[in-house]
């Protein structure tokens, strides 16, 4: 069972790596939804393995927020902004893949240094979710579109959820509810801003919102 959990986290990490190199926004969104589904599967497995109220609530929240509301919102957004088929310029793919590898290795090394302090299995889960967080940061940094910056943030949120659930019982459910609510509110505001950016500039490339800089 625990190996199955590690497998799920690894596939989530794979999804993140794929998101980094994808060129179609639609595919990126699909991959994010796939990652959310995997996260729900992970939480379900945890909840079946070690039944506790907190984990079931966490699973419920994840299904509600990450599998129903967020995909629906993103789907509406893609329809509204007419995202299909757009290809965005990014740093070239081999470099990105090398960067991803380096980040994952770094996270694994960081996790290994904690072998003495934590149970063996936790270390694996810990380092993989840390790796996922690093890759998410990479997505926020290298992507040139405002939509993908949000997706990077959502990936970061996902890796934090894995880490929280890698504990036996997860967070107390009130905290979990608060976090999900905040994330949802954040995404709503993002969406509103994206619509405003689209209306003001006619597209949502990052360079439109990079005008406020220091001039010498």
């Amino acid at each position: 069972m625990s190996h199955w959990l590690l497998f799920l986290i690894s596939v989530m990490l794979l999804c993140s790596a794929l998101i980094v190199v994808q060129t179609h926004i639609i595919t990126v969104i699909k991959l994010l939804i796939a990652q959310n589904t995997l996260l729900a599967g992970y939480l379900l497995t945890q909840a079946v393995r070690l039944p506790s109220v907190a984990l079931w609530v966490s699973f419920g929240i994840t299904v509600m927020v990450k599998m129903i509301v967020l995909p629906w919102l993103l789907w509406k957004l893609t329809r509204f902004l007419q995202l299909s088929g757009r290809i965005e310029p990014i740093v070239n793919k081999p470099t990105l893949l090398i960067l991803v590898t380096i980040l994952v290795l770094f996270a694994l090394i960081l996790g290994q240094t904690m072998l003495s302090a934590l149970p063996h299995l936790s270390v694996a889960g810990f380092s993989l979710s840390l790796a996922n967080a690093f890759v998410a940061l990479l997505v926020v940094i290298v992507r040139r579109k405002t939509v993908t910056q949000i997706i990077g943030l959502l990936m970061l949120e996902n890796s934090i959820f894995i880490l929280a659930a890698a504990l036996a019982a997860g967070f107390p459910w009130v905290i979990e509810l608060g976090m999900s609510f905040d994330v949802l509110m954040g995404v709503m505001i993002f969406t509103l801003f994206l619509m405003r950016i689209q209306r003001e500039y006619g597209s949502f490339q990052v360079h439109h919102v990079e005008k406020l800089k220091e001039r010498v």
Partner: protein
Amino acid sequence: MSLIALLFLPGVVSLFLLPCIANRTWASILSATACTFSFIVAVVLAMHVYRQQAPVFFFHQWFICDKFGSFFVLINSLIGMTTSFYAISYLINEDNQHLHPLVYRFYHTGYQLFLLGMLLVLLSNNIGMMWIAIECATIASVALVGLYHTKAALEAAWKYLILCGVGIGLALLGTVILYFGAYTQGLGEHGLLWTQLVANAADLPPRLLAISFVFLFVGYGTKAGFVPLHNWLPDAHAEGPAPMSALLSGLLLNVALFAILRFKWMLSGTSLHSLPAYLLLIFGFIGLLFSALSLFRQRQLKRLFAYSSIEHMSLVSIAFGLGTPLALFVALLHMAMHSLSKTAVFFSCGNIMQQSGTQTLSKLKGLLGKMPASATLLLISTFIILGLPPSGLFISELLLILATLNAHILLAIPLLIGLGLAFLAILLKIQPLFWSQSDNNTVMPLKNKIFSYWPTLLHLIIVIISGLAVPIWLLNPVVHAIVGGLS
């Protein structure tokens, strides 16, 4: 009923009431009344906490009010109150074309949510809830920064949201890692309680603590405006409405630093006690020198003072990094004085922007002749923010230099260079505003002037009085609590 619950009550009630009130004047008055009520409760709470030895707890120990927290609660609720009064006149004078009618209704709700979020941070003993509260305050303030329907405001809000979103995400990662460590070491669900973490920090794996602290530092540091992560700050200050700039600078930066300090405190009993100090010192000095140099390049009024906020937060983090009782005293004094005087500066900037219709420095000329009252207030508050005597900032900067000299003589050199450069930059940028000849004499008169002047005056008077008679009675108990907690 617990005083802590009573402190939240006005905010919560007004959150429900304000969206229903369509009349702008009534909404402003309700918001100001709620803030006044919570200020009164904050004073009572602070008196209660200062009198007794142990902190006050509430709701399964999820909330804590110790001396350290109540000091900040006091500053926050005072400035929250004066800003809500200032907003009464600011919103009336605002150009209606920039603001959608619905926005007025939205403004007060967002404002109360923002204040409530910050109060929750200051009073939470649960590090998970602390994160939720900071995120809540961030979301509310993002919406308020993007209040104007201009491209620049949109961009500023977007940058704020993305940068602070990443920062806050990292802070959550740090929180989870910390909980992870505490949980596996047998603390269980109590691993989220700050008091439990402080008591048991020495038993937690140091490497895990170090990693989580670095994440928390970078995460909350983004909100506190530490230098490589400061990009959102000048934009958000310059493009948002003036009351928002005042609150961001005067309160939010303090609150973010407060969160970092809570975790610094936690590490002080462990083998890692020097890690936070080094981080604070390094980021403090980088921030000080960077912002001092950046000040020379500013062309906009509020942007200039936004960089000055980075400078002052850097001074505070240097003081906390030094960590001696004198330095702690200086840090707390400087935080309070900076909050009060920077909000006064932004209030008067707001008045001047509304009267002249611009914030570009080269277009603002001969202000003392055109708008004597607003210009005089800006002049005085600029002198105070520059640290001229007899302001409280003069005392705190002087003591900071002494504390730095005590720690190491070499540390004083970059400090003095930074202070000198920042002083020179602000003076050079600001003095042409007041006396130079102006070719354009159009001034839009302010309505409801009284509310735009008295909050500024009140802040200035408090800062000057604190410079003449330093409020040792207010600060010393906090320093003793921190030092006592350390040993």
